[in-house]
Every structure is written in C-alpha cells, then in structure tokens.
C-alpha cells in the first residue's frame, strides 16, 4: 500500500562508492563529486553528492511507492548533500495532478522537487541506447570563462552505462524508459563537465517529459548568462525531454600571492631570528604567514592535515624564492609529539588550525559541532603547547587568531562560541605559563577558501594584515 502524505518513503546515506558509481553512470566526473582533496578547496569544503543522483533516487522512490508516472520534473537543489549523512525522501504535498517531494536531512530541505503526475501507462521510450562506454567519454571537466559560457551550446551523445545502472532506478526506468532516465542523468554531465563545467554548481532544472523531434542525446544552448553572479540558464532538448537548466559558476579556489609577489612588502632580514611553527600552513592565512616569514628571512615549519599537495606547493614556492621551509603532518585535535627530535625548537607559533567552518543545519546550537571546533581551538591548542614545552620550547611567542564572528556569529554559533572559548584558553595559558607570550587577535573576514561563497561578500586580501600581525608578534 502506498504511504501517506508526509511519510518518509526512503532513507539512505550516500557513500564514496556511490559517487564513483554515479560518475560512471552519468558521465559527470566533476572533482566536486569524485575528488575529496579538490572538493576540500571548494566553497563546500568537502565532497558533494551529485544533485541529479539524489533527484533520481527520490523520483525512483516516489514512483515505486505510488505506482504512477510523471510528465514534468521541476527541481531545486537547495543545499548540498554530503557523504555519510542520513537523508530521507518525503512527500510533502500531493494532489491528483502533482506531488512535491523533498530530500531532507534532519528536517532541513536539501532538494525540493515537483512532479507533475501522469498515468502509469505513459512510457516514453524504453529502448536501450547504444552507448555503453567508459571509452570515449572524457573524465576531464571543461573550464569555460564568462565569454565562452555566454555563447556556449553543444550536444551530449547518448550515454547509458548499462553495467553501472543495471537494476538501479528500476521504478523510474519502468515508468519513463531507460533513455529518458539516461537523459535526466545527462543533465548532471552537462553542468558538471561541459557548461559551466569544472567550477559549476547545479541550481535546478525544469523539464517536460514528452516526445520531441530531436536526435539522440541531449542538445543544449545557453539562453542567459548573468555575470553579476555567474548564473547560467540553458535550454535542453532530447528525444523525450525538453526544458531549462539553471546553474552557477562556482568561485575558484583562492590563490594566495607567491613568495616573489610578497618580497617587496618585507624587509629581507626583519624576521631573520624567527623559527616559526605554522599550524595549518598549507593554505589560507597560514600559507600567507609562512611566505611572509620566509620573505623576512625566517624559517618555517608548516603543518598540514589533509592538504599534503597544497603544503608541498607552499614549501616549493618558499624554497624557489631562496627561503627555508618544510612541511609536516599534524592532526590539531590530537597534536601529540608534533615535532621530531631532530627538529629545531620553534621561537614562534602561529595557530591557524581549523576544521571546515560550518553551521548547524537543523538546530540553533549543535553541541557536537561545538565540541568538534573546540577540540581544535581549545583542547588541541593546549595539547600542542604542552608538546612543544616537552620539545624545549620554554620561551615561545604565540599568535592565536580569532574572528569577528565572535562579535556577530551570523548563524555560525558553534564556530563563534568555540573561538570565543579558545580566546579565553589562549589568554589563560599565556598568564599561567612563564615564557609564553600570547597575542590574540580577532581577524576580519579575509579572502581564503573558507570565506569564499557563491555570492562574493567583501573580504580583504590577507597579506597586509597578516604582515602587521607577524610584526606585532615579533616585537613581543
């Protein structure tokens, strides 16, 4: 028997395996979905589930439950779906003509779809398309600039990976035919691989499922590109589908200035006595600090947690400019013995360690989220100081960056609370431990991967402000 309105009709967690599977099924290999490290540097900070995959899952669950068909699908991908979080399909509204179906996580709507209903006998296709290929399907996403996007159009050949899709979305395939389900999945490839491509974000689509006078595959044309916010609207047409697709151009990872670009800001000897340990030095403010210290003649050890390649790139840049630096792995929430016996005793510590900054999706204050932040900003910080003391760092100048979010949490209550608590911890250890000089500073929003957003809010370039802070710490 079909479920009632408001009932959960399916529950699951998307896992890493699902990402690869849908990439093969749809041809959408965008790194946001398939490369954990590349996704880390996106505005979301982690791997995101293909929106079309979630839509097809919800559609399949709905059709299996209701034993009907649909003749139009309109969907908005409201928020990213992350791996390993439990998501559910809920029928939020339904009448004789249409149903509103949502994918939710802890009552927060991540995907909102409207299905215009059709008799179950409506079946548009069903023949299996010829293509069953990984061969010949590019796995590299295009990276179109604004001018190219504005004038773009193209054709995605029929793509239906039989082996990957065998037995999946069975209700959707039974109701709509394999070629129609294939065309819907091609919309993911369109946005993620072709237009806007590499730095894209799928906002939603609205398609009518009806026989069209069209070749096999998906023809698409950009109808509007708004460069104010990078919004793209495309028209799409295939043998059994016609409609529009909305997408955005995502901000690219923030590239900080190189050492050679920073040299003019710094006296080449002004940090010559500095042996800096820079926690979280593989990108963002830590990266800038390492380069500035180096430009001033100091030595840097930078730590990385997940971004080994990023850390190595920073070290390479410093060395190419004639500086000294090396990179070590450190989990800031469990610092242990951070430095090896052979490592020199640091004179200065810059503590830029941070987990991905996120807000609670479902409640005003998520204690577990707060604890995760505080494990780095508080407990991990104290643990690192203890480890450094054992290592011989009895005299140490410490820069502890805080944030203006403490004054205005703006929805990031857990992050702001953990930072506020971290400030108190940092000042407290500074008073308690002789030889420790601690500088706590609330920094404004600056341009890093963590502060990028779809709608670019103002953020300052960090090099001048960080140079000021390094000089203050150096003078302590």
């Amino acid at each position, binding site marked *: 028997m079909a479920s009632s309105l408001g009932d959960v009709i399916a529950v699951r967690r998307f896992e890493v395996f699902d990402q690869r599977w849908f990439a093969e099924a749809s041809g959408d290999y965008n790194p946001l979905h398939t490369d954990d490290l590349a996704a880390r540097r996106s505005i979301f900070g982690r791997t995101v589930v293909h929106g079309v995959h979630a839509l097809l899952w919800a559609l399949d669950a709905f059709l299996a439950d209701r034993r009907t068909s649909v003749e139009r699908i309109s969907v908005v991908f409201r928020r990213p779906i992350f791996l390993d979080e439990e998501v559910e399909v809920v029928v939020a509204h339904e009448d004789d003509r249409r149903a509103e179906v949502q994918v939710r996580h802890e009552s927060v709507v991540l995907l909102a779809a409207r299905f215009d209903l059709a008799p179950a006998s409506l079946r548009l296709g069903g023949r299996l398309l010829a293509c069953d290929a990984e061969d010949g399907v590019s796995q590299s996403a295009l990276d179109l600039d604004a001018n190219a996007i504005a004038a773009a159009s193209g054709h995605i050949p029929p793509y239906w990976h039989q082996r990957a899709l065998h037995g999946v979305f069975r209700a959707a395939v039974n109701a709509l035919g394999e070629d129609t389900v294939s065309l819907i999945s091609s919309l993911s490839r369109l946005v993620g691989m072709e237009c806007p491509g590499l730095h894209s974000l799928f906002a939603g689509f609205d398609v009518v499922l009806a026989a069209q006078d069209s070749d096999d595959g998906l023809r698409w044309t950009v109808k509007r590109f708004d460069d104010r916010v990078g919004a793209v609207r495309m028209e799409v047409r295939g043998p059994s589908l016609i409609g529009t697709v909305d997408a955005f151009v995502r901000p690219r990872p923030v590239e900080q200035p190189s050492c050679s670009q920073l040299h003019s800001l710094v006296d080449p000897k002004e940090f010559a006595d500095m042996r800096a340990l820079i926690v979280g030095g593989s990108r963002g403010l830590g990266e800038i600090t390492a380069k500035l210290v180096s430009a001033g003649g100091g030595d840097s050890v930078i730590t990385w947690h997940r971004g080994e390649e990023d850390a190595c790139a920073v070290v390479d840049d410093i060395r190419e400019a004639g500086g000294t630096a090396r990179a070590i792995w450190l989990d800031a929430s469990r610092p242990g013995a951070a430095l090896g016996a052979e490592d020199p005793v640091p004179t200065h510590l810059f503590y830029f360690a941070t987990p991905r900054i996120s807000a609670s999706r479902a409640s005003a204050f998520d204690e577990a989220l707060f604890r995760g932040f505080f494990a780095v900003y508080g407990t991990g910080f104290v643990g690192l100081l203890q480890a450094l003391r054992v290592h011989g760092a009895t005299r140490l100048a410490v820069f502890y960056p805080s944030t203006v979010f403490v004054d205005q949490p703006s929805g990031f209550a857990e992050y702001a609370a953990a930072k506020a608590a971290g400030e108190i911890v940092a000042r407290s250890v500074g008073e308690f431990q002789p030889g420790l000089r601690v500088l706590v500073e609330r920094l404004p929003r600056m341009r890093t991967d963590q502060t990028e*957003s779809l709608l670019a809010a103002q953020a300052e370039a960090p090099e001048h402000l960080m140079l000021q802070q390094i000089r203050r710490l150096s003078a302590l």
Partner: protein
Amino acid sequence: MVQNIHERLEAIFREVLGEDIELTDGLTAGAVDGWDSLAHVSIIYAVEEDFRIRFTQDEMVDLANVGELKACIARKLERVG
C-alpha cells in the same frame, strides 16, 4: 508605494521559498531556512522581473536585510518615475 512593495515582496518570497514569511525590515537570510545563495538569486531575479528594475552586482551581494532590499527597490522605482 512602500506598502505595495512590501506586499509584492511577500508574494515573491512565498513563491521562491515555498512558504509564508513575515517580512520584517530586519529580517536577514541567515534567519530564514531555505534563503540560501541560490534562493537569494532567485528572489533577486523575481524582484527584477516583477518591478522591472535591475540591481548592480554590488547591490545583489551587499543587501543585508529585507529593509535594505525594500529601500533599494524604492530608490530605483523613484529614479524611473
């Protein structure tokens, strides 16, 4: 005119966000579930279409709350007479 703007905005927010929102001047995106970046752009487009005005890039990004959005719309409507 301000009352008219308010009512039209309520209809736009209802259409985009899918529910009735009490639009106070101090209301911000962070306080409304579903008013994220994508919804914000959809709201802006709907406002542009409904009022036949066009926002600059800075306006699209910088509008801090509903009150600023209403004031910006009013300024633009005055300009076009």
